[in-house]
């Protein structure tokens, strides 16, 4: 096992107790195996309700697994941790409305007692990275949806999380802002070399962003039916090279899996 593995998932299953009785356990996720390298941009693609959030929540440490292993930096995940920064889809819930943008970004650093000098330097850099210099004194409810997501991203990077876990972070944004944010994430990823776990149900978004895409089958018993590399360099154009055929291929997989 090389040092370049960020996350290893082995035979991971997750079941919830069936509402009716103890006998019938419903497995949402079943036998997920996965290996994510350090610095990889990994996208999980699957339709609504297939268990993408469940998978990310287990990796983030919010939800307990039923069987198998989830190793981050070689250690079994038991609870949330600093090294796994999370960007939530619901930015309104995920930001603290009673403090300014700057204070939100600073949150983790204050919590772990980083001295003010170092803190200011880091926060300035991260706010600049996401282009919020002009807005750092504002409060979250004075920001647009895209700006709120930038705050979340800056907050995780400021806290020096090695891994960014993003569950449909741009799902609530309009098409233009969405594309803008996608480019931004690519840019940030290239500058910081974080490991990114990104969930989406949008094939185009997956192909535009992912270095590697894991496609989930539908629930119950969802598993990864296929993992594929996207070798194209960034920035990508979805209409060029072998991307159109890749999109078609994935669409074909979905058509079979989801019987459209």
């Amino acid at each position, binding site marked *: 096992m090389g040092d370049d593995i960020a996350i290893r998932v082995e035979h991971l299953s997750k079941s919830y107790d069936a509402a009716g009785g103890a006998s019938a356990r419903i497995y949402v996720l079943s036998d997920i195996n996965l290996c994510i390298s350090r610095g990889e941009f990994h996208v999980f693609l699957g339709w609504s309700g297939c268990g993408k959030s469940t998978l990310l929540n287990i990796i*983030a*440490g*919010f939800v307990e697994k039923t069987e198998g292993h989830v190793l981050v930096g070689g250690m079994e995940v038991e*609870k*949330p*941790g*600093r090294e*796994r*920064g*999370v960007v*939530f889809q*619901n930015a309104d*819930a*995920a930001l*603290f*409305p*009673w*403090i300014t943008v700057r204070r939100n970004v600073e*949150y*983790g650093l204050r*919590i*772990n007692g980083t001295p003010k000098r170092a803190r200011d330097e880091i926060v300035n850099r991260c706010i600049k990275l996401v282009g919020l210099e002009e807005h750092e004194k504002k*409060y979250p409810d004075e920001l647009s949806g895209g700006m709120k997501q930038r705050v979340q991203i800056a*907050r995780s990077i400021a*806290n020096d*999380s090695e891994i960014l876990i993003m569950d449909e972070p741009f799902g609530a944004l309009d098409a233009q802002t969405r594309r803008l944010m996608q480019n931004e994430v690519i840019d940030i990823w290239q500058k910081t070399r974080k490991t990114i776990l990104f969930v989406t149900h949008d094939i185009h978004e997956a192909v535009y962003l992912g270095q590697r895409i894991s496609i989930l089958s539908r629930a119950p018993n969802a598993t990864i039916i296929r993992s594929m590399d996207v070798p194209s360099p960034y920035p990508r154009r979805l209409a060029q090279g072998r991307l159109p055929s890749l999109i078609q291929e994935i669409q074909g997989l979905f058509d079979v899996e989801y019987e459209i």
Partner: protein
Amino acid sequence: MCLFLLKKGVVTLALLLVIWELASLFNSVDFLPGPVQTVIGGWEIVRNGVLFDYITISFLRIFIGWSLGIAAAVPIGLLIGQFAIVREILEPFINFFRFVPAIGFLTLFLMWFGVEEESKIAIIFYATIFPVIINTIAGVVSINEIKLQVAQSQGASPFQIFYTVTIPASVPHIFTGIRLGLSGAIISIVAAEMLAAQSGIGYLIYTSRLYFRTDWIFVGILTLGLTGYFSDKLLRFFGRTALRRYGVKG
């Protein structure tokens, strides 16, 4: 213009005064004094300073009891909301005593705390704590799970989460509790000053009947109502300005 007056409550007030005056015309002063008679009677105790003394002393009792009540109830509510064990132990007590009104404790508090200020403040305190505790619990329990998850994945310890997330996120509910607590405190000032008091608005209301000064009872009632009305307005103003960031709405 008409709508403006209606909005500001002027129409309601005028209507009330007219009905009150009309009703008083058919009754004796001792039974139902009208607004004019009430003002005349009220002027008497304004001029000799008694009313202002009474207002001051009642305000002080309300304020002290209410403040102490908040100081005790907020931590209790936070602990009950946060820790299941504390909830198991304390919730039955709270659900029992919150149905016993402050006035029920009048005699007991007199015995326990004496005839001085302590017993009156204890009544106000008692009336304040339940709405504050119950609303604070609601605030803690209704915190969005995501906020706690954010703090956890930023590396916050349970204690850090408690004071950086749980407390600020509960502020709107706590504030609602404080407002309800104030109305509870004002309501029970009459009970607090019913026995063994020599002054206060409650005392005025309660003893004026002995002198057949029904107009003074009305003065007392008006004073209490106006006190409540304006102190709540003031409190709400404070909420929507100073606590706006915490999500308190006027």
